[in-house]
């Protein structure tokens, strides 16, 4: 039976404590923290990280990639296609964005499940990622967090079967953004709860239980979306759920991560369930999608390494000032250093595999792996000078070691000081790169590094991505 064959999660390492937000605005911040995408991260980079995590845990060759988000970097240009290139999926995969609603994630899951069940795809990856911004001083600024999750749907080595599903749509205006809004707007809370959220969730769950002839007590784990912890608790109370059944929404520690939220909760639930446990899984937004999942014997093997629990606590607490500058919410002083040149879409297209997937070449004659240099694709082997005898060679997944570095006060970055240097890849090859998610004072020659897909800069309406190196945790 079709189901989830792997799940991956990605949370940025940065946390903004709600107390820190409160301090700035003179009120009491809430407790806990929200996960904040790094200065060089966005929906697509986090989605790539989650997808890679999912693949590393046992993803198969996949026929499709569905990306769900309400915060895509482009209003018109497919994020899933960028992602699929970065993750190096085969070109004949189906890629699509699911967007414009918080329910985009479960909508994509339903589509993936239907495709696999119908046999039109062997396996499909569903990724959900969001970096939604709340307006300053508002409730959403406190609650919204950033994160990404990826599920692989397939038939082989299923860890949780999808037994049944049930969907309802609802034209209900509880949270929305026009095409010109930077921040979501929301309706009055009581109206949302009493007319929208609570009755909708109750209807979809009751509908699914009726359809599958199950009772709420048949579920060991119940995973569902809510806009915040209070609303989450209100539904548990209305449905008289047993505390032991309810999966913590993680909102206190990372915030509400939008389309990713319910998948990240599911990842947490899958770390705990036993074989044959049933999970009730419900996504919400302009209606609701409810699923019945059932863990298989494969779950035990999968549980050997944590998916999300080790990422819940961040590594670096940032200031509100950092948050504002990283998200471009305040104008900052322009650098007096020379500006970067505008990029050429033509050469960027020619070099798309190099730039997006960090694919270089290996010489078939002497075996030397070599990274294409930007602006200069390898044609003649750097080692043996043989022409055009190469096979593609991916560096993004190779372990690396720091060879040398500098803490660079002149590097343009929203998180100074810049740190950059040289990494040597296990198996050969070398690259001069920027470092990220690192402590400038703790860099050391020979420290283990890994590659991570990041946003470099935006110029003339083009978001430019490339790979950086970060210390291995």
């Amino acid at each position, binding site marked *: 039976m079709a189901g989830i064959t792997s799940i991956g999660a990605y949370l940025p390492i940065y946390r903004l404590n709600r107390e820190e937000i409160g301090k700035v605005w003179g009120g009491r911040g809430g407790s806990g923290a929200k996960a904040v995408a790094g200065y060089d991260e966005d929906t697509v980079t986090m989605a790539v990280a989650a997808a890679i995590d999912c693949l590393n845990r046992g993803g198969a060759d996949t026929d499709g990639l569905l990306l769900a988000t309400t915060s895509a970097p482009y209003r018109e240009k497919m994020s899933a296609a960028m992602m699929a290139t970065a993750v190096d999926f085969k070109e004949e995969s189906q890629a699509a964005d699911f967007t414009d609603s918080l329910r985009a994630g479960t909508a994509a899951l339903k589509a993936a499940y239907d495709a696999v069940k119908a046999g039109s795809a062997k396996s499909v990856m569903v990724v959900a990622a969001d970096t939604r911004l709340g307006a300053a001083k508002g409730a959403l600024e406190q609650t919204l967090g950033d994160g990404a999750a990826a599920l692989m749907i397939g038939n082989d080595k299923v860890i949780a079967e999808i037994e049944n599903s049930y969907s309802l749509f609802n034209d209900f205006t509880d949270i929305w953004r026009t095409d010109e809004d930077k921040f979501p707007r929301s309706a009055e809370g009581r109206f949302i709860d009493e007319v929208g959220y609570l009755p909708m969730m109750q209807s979809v769950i009751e509908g699914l239980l009726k359809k599958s002839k199950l009772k709420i007590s048949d579920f060991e784990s119940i995973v569902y979306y809510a806009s915040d912890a209070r609303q989450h608790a209100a539904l548990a109370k209305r449905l008289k759920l047993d505390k032991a059944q309810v999966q913590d929404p993680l909102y206190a520690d990372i915030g509400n991560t939008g389309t990713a939220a319910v998948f990240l909760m599911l990842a947490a639930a899958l770390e705990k369930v036993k074989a044959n446990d049933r999970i009730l899984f419900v996504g919400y937004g302009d209606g609701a999608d409810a699923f019945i999942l059932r863990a298989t014997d494969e779950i035990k093997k999968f549980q050997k390494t944590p998916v999300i629990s080790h990422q819940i606590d961040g590594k670096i607490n940032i200031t509100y000032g950092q948050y504002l500058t990283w998200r471009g919410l305040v104008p900052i002083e322009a650098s007096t250093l020379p500006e970067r040149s505008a990029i*050429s879409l033509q*050469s960027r297209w020619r070099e798309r595999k190099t730039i997006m997937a960090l694919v270089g070449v290996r010489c078939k004659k002497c075996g030397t792996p070599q990274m294409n*240099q*930007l602006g200069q694709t390898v044609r003649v082997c750097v080692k043996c000078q043989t022409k055009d005898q190469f096979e593609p060679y991916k560096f993004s997944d190779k372990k690396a070691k720091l060879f040398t570095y500098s803490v660079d006060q002149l590097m343009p970055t929203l998180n100074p000081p810049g740190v950059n240097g040289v990494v040597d890849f296990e198996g050969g090859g070398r690259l001069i790169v920027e470092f990220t998610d690192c402590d400038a004072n703790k860099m050391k020659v020979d420290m283990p590094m890994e590659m991570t897909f990041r946003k470099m800069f935006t110029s003339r309406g083009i978001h430019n991505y490339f790979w950086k190196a970060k210390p291995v945790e």
Partner: protein
Amino acid sequence: MDGIKNKVAIVGMGCSKFGERWDKGVEDLIVEAAFEAFEDAGIGPKDIQAAWVGTVFSGVSAITLSPLQLQYIPMTRVENMCATGSEAMRAASYAVAAGICDVALAVGVEKLKDSGSTGVKGPSIVGDNQDGSSGIGPGYSAPASFAYLATRYFHDFGIKPEEGKRLLAQIAVKNHHNGSLNPKAHFQNELTIDQVVNAPIIAWPLGLYDCCGVSDGASVAVITRADIAKNFRPDPIYIKALQITVGARQGAMMQDYDFTHMEENVRGSKLAYAEAGIKNPRKELSCAEVHDCFSIHEMIVYEDLGFSPRGRAREDIEAGTFTLKGELPVNTDGGLKCFGHPLGASGLRMMYEVYKQLQGKAGPRQVKNPRLGLTHNLGGNAGTGVCSCNIVGNEK
């Protein structure tokens, strides 16, 4: 293949004042340096039969030389990163040596301060971040790319960063002392070790005074046949070697490169010594102008060019080997450190100093009994570069 040795000579040189020349344009810098060179050679613009101008950012085509009003002669603009000025001289010298012309002009000019920014427009390796490229590569600065050498040199030779910084500081102090004796230098102030060590960090472990300045300048040479050089002046300076050695990113792509030397420097200097017939550069050279864009690079150059044994530049720095009164004075005019680095001008500015030294006209900076001098540029950065290595002498 017998090389350039003793085929051509420099019979006139000029060098503008280097610095923040806010009130002067590229044309002013060129005229200032060129007319000094004409006067030095005892000729006028009409005597020039061909010209090469080297500039990276300050002009396209040899029409850059139009301020000189040379009348319909063959002229070409050349560019080879930090070796651009030396490249102009190489072109002029080769044309004279080939017998195509008898009097050629080599001009190097750069007006960096018109960019309106505090640095050189960055990453300058072909393809990286140039207009019309994919331009998405890492945004490391030039100081950082040389700091990689310091980090790795300190690591491999067991030098603690604090010790390393004091060691490099001695290079800046030496060059500033030399610059203080040179009215054409951008910076003419002395520095102390503590000032250097305590300066703000630019790219760890390099601080402000480990980095050369940013300035405007021009320098010019008049090249002629060696056999007629004495018709122009009694003390022509003969060219013994002109070498350009260009990397192909081997160091940036392959793990066997150690980031404690520059292979281009090693290869380029070996070729130059062979061309000039030099066996022991430390003993035979009277002075050297080397590419001290960053202090660590001057230190590495001591080893790459065979002045110090590998890994032992430290001992020579501490012994004062490269000071004005030392065994082999290096950067006697103050170097890039005090002149700044207007890219196209630097190579010929270095040659201007060696030319004056070999003629015994270097004033308070004069080295004793000069015979042979070397100039050296390194463009690019650790991992791949363009090295220029040139040797001249005052005897044929």
